[in-house]
């Protein structure tokens, strides 16, 4: 029995890890395709059918490049930086519920790697650690541009984590739990007679707006990609990196996008719940599998949205970035918390 649980958990962890890496791999391909389509081009189409082997070709190319360490760089930290970035990026998908429960042999199996009752805090802790990878890499390079990029990354992440945390507090006031599994399950309740539509986006639209803006900033994506701003900083924190060190940084960014998309889909867009999920009269397992498919559709939409925004907007200036973070988003998120709390109190008074 104990061994069974261990085996099942191991299998789920392995699957989640594999899926995370696979999606991150093909995000690089998708990014190039989306960029090309938006710019009226066709994108990579030579390696394999429709260019589907392009990520493999890119990886092989990066592996065969020389792993170059600058003479005056701190060698240990220089290698630790990208490793840390990749490690923290891969860790946070552990608590995301990728589906409801599967009924196999009379037992309910949760499609989630680990259930932590403070799941959201875990995700935030890991995401906050992610900046250390960039910080250490930029500092260890012993290069002024890298250091500037690292400083930018650190100050940007700190600024936007505040607003992100405040938007999450407002969400927690609504849900009343920190567990990702419970939050996802709550959103499966009925709303106006439609099951599986009790999504948090309807209660927290402003919170979601703040959250998605901060998610862009946390993943260092356009319009907040100042740490790797090539017009000002050559390559930012990864100027000195070559070969797979560079590869890991770029890859970690895509893993982060996947995790951010999954968190947004789970927290605000109903997770694995879809409209009429309990009213169709389908068997339990079919509903669960459909829910997982729906969750991935939502995640892919958000990944696409990240890319869509990247190829639409120009980069912020640094003072604009700080103004937006400290003068607009944080007051707005505090206001959101107060309004949400007031609304909950009012609801308790009236009903």
């Amino acid at each position, binding site marked *: 029995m104990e061994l069974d649980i261990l085996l099942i958990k191991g299998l789920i962890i392995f699957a989640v890890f594999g899926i995370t890496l696979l999606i991150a791999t093909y995000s690089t391909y998708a990014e190039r395709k*989306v960029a090309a*389509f*938006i*710019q*009226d*081009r*066709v994108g990579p*189409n030579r390696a394999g059918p429709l260019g589907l082997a392009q990520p493999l070709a890119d990886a092989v190319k990066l592996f065969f490049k020389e792993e170059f360490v600058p003479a005056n760089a701190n060698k240990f930290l220089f290698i630790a930086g990208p490793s840390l970035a990749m490690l923290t990026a891969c860790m946070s998908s552990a608590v995301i519920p990728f589906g409801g429960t599967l009924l196999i042999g009379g037992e309910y199996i949760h499609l989630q790697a680990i259930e932590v009752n403070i799941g959201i805090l875990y995700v935030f802790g890991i995401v906050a650690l992610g900046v250390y990878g960039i910080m250490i890499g930029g500092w260890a390079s012993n290069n002024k541009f890298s250091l500037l990029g690292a400083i930018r990354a650190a100050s940007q992440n700190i600024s936007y984590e505040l607003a992100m945390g405040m938007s999450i507090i407002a969400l927690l006031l609504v849900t009343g739990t920190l567990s990702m599994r419970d939050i996802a399950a709550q959103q499966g309740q009925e709303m106006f007679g439609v099951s599986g539509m009790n999504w948090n986006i309807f209660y927290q639209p402003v919170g979601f707006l703040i959250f998605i803006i901060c998610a862009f900033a946390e993943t260092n994506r356009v319009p907040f990609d100042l740490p790797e701003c090539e017009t000002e900083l050559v390559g930012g924190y990864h100027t000195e990196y070559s070969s797979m060190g560079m590869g890991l940084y770029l890859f970690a960014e895509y893993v982060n996008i996947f995790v951010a998309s999954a968190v947004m889909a789970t927290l605000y867009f109903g997770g694995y719940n879809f409209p009429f999920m309990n009213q169709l009269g389908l068997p339990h397992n079919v509903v669960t599998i459909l829910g997982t498919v729906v969750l991935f559709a939502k995640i892919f939409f958000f990944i696409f949205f990240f890319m*869509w*925004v990247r*190829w*639409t*907007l120009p980069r912020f200036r640094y003072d604009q970035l700080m103004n937006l973070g400290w003068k607009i988003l944080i007051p707005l998120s505090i206001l959101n918390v107060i309004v949400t709390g007031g609304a909950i109190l009012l609801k308790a008074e009236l009903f």
Partner: protein
Amino acid sequence: MQSLSNRAKKLEKKPMNFSERMYLPAIFQGLSITMRHFFKKKATIRYPEETRPMSTVWRGLHVLKRDEKGRERCTACGLCAVACPAEAITMVAGERKRGEENLYREEKYAISYEINMLRCIFCGLCEEACPKAAIFLQNDKTAPARYERDEFIYGKDRLVEPMPIENL
């Protein structure tokens, strides 16, 4: 200051109103523009599989024509070389020997005929100068990129039209 053309417009820098300061309407406008481009017809021509359609009067790679009996039309008169503004054409003239009547149309022919494709500007003046209708610029062939400079000097082996099959 007085504007010289009187077409200069006076611009005022107005402070942004609330919806402009929110950025969001502008962002959604931008997103809709990029989404429209996402579904647009792509401008790319996938080169090796498809080629750009060429005009019928396109001046491409030269060819030295043969007449209807398969004899070379060129008599090495040198008018094309004189007409050439880039001085890309050189030739050596020779006298036709007995028994070569089926190879060369006139008594005089070009022993060697070279065009330097790095000098050529594809103006077509050689084609206009030729009194024997021997040299033409094809509309379906171009001089492709090569690795060595001397590969761009096209001799008779690459310029003369291949012998029609019925004359072989």
